[in-house]
């Protein structure tokens, strides 16, 4: 479900630090609905790194709940997480975990 961590240094990014990226499959049967999306945006905002999420040709700011909702990612969708900045090595696994989780922590998918 979770692909191996891939690393690459992007010359296009103006920020210090490398860009780490990983493709993750949405595991939740209800898709990446409002609660996991809110959890993702909130967690992403705790890092200094820039965070983007891409589904097919849709690329959005991973710190914006509203933009994450544009993705309408159903179960089985593949999302590319890209993190650029000094705390990227810490941020990437934390954010990937939220997308790969099969359910919310409390088990409630309402």
């Amino acid at each position: 479900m979770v692909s191996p961590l891939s690393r690459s240094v992007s010359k296009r990014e103006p920020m210090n630090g490398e860009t780490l990226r990983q493709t993750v499959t949405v595991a939740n049967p209800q898709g990446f609905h409002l609660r996991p999306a809110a959890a993702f945006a909130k967690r992403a905002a705790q890092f200094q790194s820039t965070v983007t999420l891409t589904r097919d040709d849709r690329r959005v700011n991973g710190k914006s709940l509203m933009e994450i909702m544009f993705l309408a990612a159903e179960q089985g969708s593949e999302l590319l997480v890209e993190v650029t900045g000094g705390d990227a090595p810490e941020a990437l696994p934390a954010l990937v975990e939220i997308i790969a989780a099969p359910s919310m922590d409390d088990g409630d998918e309402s």
Partner: protein
Amino acid sequence: MRMSDFVVREAIQPELTATTKEGVIREMVESLRAAGYLKGGEPEDIVKAILKREQLGSTGIGRGVAIPHTKHNSVDRLIGTVAVSTPGVKFESVDGEPVNVLVLLVSPQDKPGDHLRALENVARSMREDGFVRSLRSAGSREAIWALLNEAPLQW
């Protein structure tokens, strides 16, 4: 999908009278009942489910917009309604601001894709501050309905 594809026109409320979170949710569900979409104990059941969902985390997504929602067996397709509160309602939104525009969704248990696309549609419409302002100042059901039909469709 446009917002007008799932919003029940007769249930649109251009000015809510309730001023609390529970009150506005109740008023919006009642408008769906009055429009003929819910019956018997369903409205109360849905209000309770929506409030329970809000306790797990507010659906106030920022910019003065909230999307209270639940899944319920009483509907066989996703339905919703739009309401405006000019004074604003405290909603524990992600940005801490009061909510002026609400989109309430009730979806069937087995159609998560439709729910996700409705959320996408609402978010995409509401990203434009001008659209939110227009809804807030629309003043009538017909004016809101016209705005929902104009909302952008494309990515």
